[in-house]
């Protein structure tokens, strides 16, 4: 559609960053296009209104107190032992030991949950359920409740029907996906964003964006 080409120019013109050549092209198009004329009027109204909006007030001393609050929370999350009891060098030593312990326990769980060869397997579900059991009940309820109303999940599940069929309870898949995505914004931030954005308005998601979500779904080994 020809109007598609002019959309960003409509915004550029209102922001005053359009080149003279583009401005001329746009003017010619506007002279013949009622839709774009209406759109540019709406964009103008938006920018006019936005210019008159004042920022909300921030509580006094908020920024002064923010750093101490962050430090306190960061320290809290470090663990139950304060640095006074465990000197830095001990903590440094404990970190790799803990990591090895975590990996070892994960391997143990995997071995325990992996069915013997030839055993008809519903075990993937079991592993997933065991994963779920590690999560506090309240958290599960909260996540599954929010997932239940997720239209995008239903949509993205369509091409992943095979995976869904392996589950007795699709909400567990949701939880698994949620965990995968939320656990690491660095790796999955894009998919998460799309996932969340799509949740509220699927029609705004371009095909190119749905790809990574489906790719993400397919990566999950059940």
């Amino acid at each position: 559609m020809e109007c598609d080409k002019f959309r960003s120019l409509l915004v550029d013109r209102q922001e005053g960053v359009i080149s003279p050549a583009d401005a001329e092209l746009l003017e010619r198009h506007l002279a013949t296009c009622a839709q774009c004329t209406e759109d540019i009027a709406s964009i103008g109204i938006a920018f006019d209104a936005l210019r008159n909006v004042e920022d909300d007030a921030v509580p006094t001393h908020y920024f002064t107190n923010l750093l101490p609050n962050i430090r306190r929370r960061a320290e809290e999350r470090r663990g139950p032992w304060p640095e006074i009891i465990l000197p830095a060098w001990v903590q440094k030593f404990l970190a790799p030991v803990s990591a090895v312990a975590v990996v070892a326990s994960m391997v143990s769980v995997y071995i325990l949950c992996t069915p013997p060869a030839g055993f008809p397997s519903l075990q993937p579900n079991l592993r997933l359920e065991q994963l779920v059991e590690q999560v506090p009940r309240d958290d599960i309820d909260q996540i599954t409740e929010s997932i239940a109303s997720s239209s995008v999940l239903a949509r993205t599940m369509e091409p992943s029907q095979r995976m869904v069929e392996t589950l007795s309870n699709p909400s567990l898949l949701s939880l698994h996906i949620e965990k995968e995505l939320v656990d690491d914004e660095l790796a999955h931030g894009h998919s998460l964003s799309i996932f969340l954005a799509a949740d509220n308005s699927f029609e705004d998601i371009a095909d190119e964006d749905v790809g990574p979500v489906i790719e993400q779904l397919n990566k999950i080994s059940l």
Partner: protein
Amino acid sequence: MDHRTDLELIEEFKNGNDKAFNLLVLRYQEKIYWVVRRMLPDHDEADDVVQDIFVKVYRSIGSFKGDSSFYTWLYRIAMNLSLNEIRRKKTRRTFSLDDTTMQHEADDPLPLEQMEREEQTRLIKSAIDRLPEKQKKVFVLRYYEELPYEEISKILKTSVGGLKANYFHAVKKIGEYVKNGMR
């Protein structure tokens, strides 16, 4: 004013200088607060998320490889955690007329001009709040943060063309909402 770059501060923090983290927080706290505040139109929620963001940075800065700038990485975390919060709450906040009128019931009547300005502010906030999340984050980064599309593209990992389309739709929707609200 500290002239060390973000990367220098990150290296220092990784090497055990805890104060380097404080400097990074002080450098970005206001910017990040306002990004989050515009995503979540409530100070208390924004405060929680801002703290979460920096706590996450504190904990995961070791995994920051410097492939993108710290600023891009920080904004990405901010956007993702803000969206998490929106989704968790799952509430479409509306800035109801009641909030404004009740607030002033006990006060003296407001001058007409001020009432109009407040009404317009209410409409705009409501319009932004109703944007689909993808459009909302593009709008916040482009309009309020005045970031170039190329920078937003790195933060949101979306093509510049896609961002421009989202921004167009966001601004248009805001305009339409304001126009209909003022009728």
